[in-house]
């Protein structure tokens, strides 16, 4: 449905998007994840034909965005980072205008009424857009993207400015849209991407650093599993004891809240399971194990791992 090949965008010497390629199949919801300034919006602007790429190609539903711009654009509904609203128009006038601009062939009244119902903007239909709150502006922007029922939806941070209830509503909406549309969604909010998307592309400094499902990403990283334990015993000695267990790579002492106990973070070699050893050794010393938890990396940890630090990529 969407095919991006070797896309590069340079602004002078600054490389905003650096040779990225990916493909999105029909009916997939792709999450575009990255810190601010990673190149998410630039990529989306190129996908929709608003900006040019320095090199590389974008094909939407078989139409190249440069060679057949109108055919490609007819397949896309786009919600940019800042919704493209004419503040001097009412919601009704604006949606009518966008309907005409997109040369939409569906029955006008029925189609716009349906969209307004889905986006819950019926009761602000006659109001000037400049008088709407940020959340409603965002919804009108989203409504505009849905006009014409385009097979591809590109949504740049669709939940920005919404209150928590609205965020949940919009996420559910995007999920339901994903049944009939191909969706690319950008965000720097991890739970959002995790909740909505089938597939996640992590982008940092213009490069793709990971491209997989949420479950696979977690699995890949949980190999470096860690163990967090609390023991009723002296901190230093306990740490030394734990470090002597075969398979333990690193032990660090954490701050403990309870007097007379110590908390340790234990990093374990790949595939090793030290839990039984740990129990027997501690019980020999009569230092009771109060708490133990394996911490697989959450998506949040993975994200930080991928986007902070020098090497960045998956090893």
């Amino acid at each position, binding site marked *: 449905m969407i095919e991006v090949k070797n896309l590069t965008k340079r602004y002078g010497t600054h490389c905003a998007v650096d040779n990225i390629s990916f493909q999105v199949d029909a009916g997939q919801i792709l999450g575009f994840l990255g810190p601010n300034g990673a190149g998410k919006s630039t990529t989306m602007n190129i996908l929709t034909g608003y900006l040019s790429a320095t090199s590389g190609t974008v094909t939407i539903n078989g139409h190249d965005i440069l060679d057949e711009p*109108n055919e490609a654009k007819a397949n896309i509904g*786009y919600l940019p980072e800042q919704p493209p609203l004419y503040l001097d128009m009412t919601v009704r006038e604006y949606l009518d205008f966008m309907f*005409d601009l997109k040369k939409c062939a569906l029955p006008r009244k029925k189609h716009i009424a349906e969209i307004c119902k889905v986006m819950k903007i019926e009761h602000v239909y006659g109001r000037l857009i400049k008088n709407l709150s940020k959340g409603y502006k965002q919804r009108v922007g989203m409504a505009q993207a849905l006009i014409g029922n385009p097979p591809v939806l590109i949504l740049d941070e669709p939940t920005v400015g919404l209150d928590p209830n609205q965020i949940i509503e919009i996420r559910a909406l995007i999920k339901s849209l994903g049944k009939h549309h191909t969706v690319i969604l950008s965000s720097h909010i991890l739970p959002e991407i995790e909740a909505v998307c089938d597939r996640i592309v992590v982008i940092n400094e213009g490069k793709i650093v990971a491209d997989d499902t949420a479950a696979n990403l977690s699995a890949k990283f949980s190999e470096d599993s860690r163990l967090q334990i609390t023991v009723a015993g002296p901190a230093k000695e306990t740490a030394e004891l734990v470090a002597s267990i075969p398979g333990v790579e690193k032990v660090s002492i954490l701050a403990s809240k309870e007097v007379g106990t110590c908390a340790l973070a234990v990093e374990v070699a790949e595939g090793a399971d030290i839990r039984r050893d740990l129990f027997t050794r501690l019980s020999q010393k009569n230092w009771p194990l109060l708490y133990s938890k394996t911490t697989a990396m959450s998506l949040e940890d993975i994200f930080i791992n991928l986007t902070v630090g020098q090497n960045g990529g998956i090893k």
Partner: protein
Amino acid sequence: MSAIFRREFRAFFTNPIGYVVLAVIYAFSGLYFFSYNLAAGYADLSNGVFSMLFLITLLAVPFLTMRLFSEDKKQKTDQALLTAPTGLTGIVLGKFFAALLLYIIGISITLVYAIIIALQTTPDWLVIFGNYLGILLLGGLIISIGLFISTLTESQIIAALGTLAISLLLMSIDMIPSLLNNAAWITTAVEFLSVSTRYASFTSGLIQYDDIIFFATFQALFLFLTVRVLDRKRWS
């Protein structure tokens, strides 16, 4: 094209700039009609009303066009326009004709003046027709220049001042040869480019093909350049 045309035309009246430009055209052409024609009892519209309209057009049209693309850039509504399956030419022409229609509504007040004169005496209709054609072509030219300049900036003020500067240059271009000892090639170039000389021949009822072609060509050129500037974003 028609969606953009309708939106932009309406916007002239939701942002009061359309009313203001119309008011300026009506007030000053009316003042000149009253003093040159009604009070002086003179039937010729060319010297009073239409030479004033020449000035009003050059000074007021920049404020009509200043918003057209710069505001889209600033409010990021150009993202909706440029990602819609509409050709750039359609977008540019939609905005051009919206401004042109408002301008035509402004200058058509002179029809009322012509009718008032026709009630008293028989006016020279050919001269009046020449005047209309001249002021229409002139307005179209300034609108196309203003449209082009508004694509270059996000600031309405810079767009207005830039267009105004070109208007003033067009007004004062005739004095350049005398400053340069009337060098032959400069005189020829300025005579070719002199909008006021070409406009003056319309106001005397002289409708010449080369004048019409001059205005039409430069309008087309600036509209073409406007499309190119918008398209540049997609290519460079």
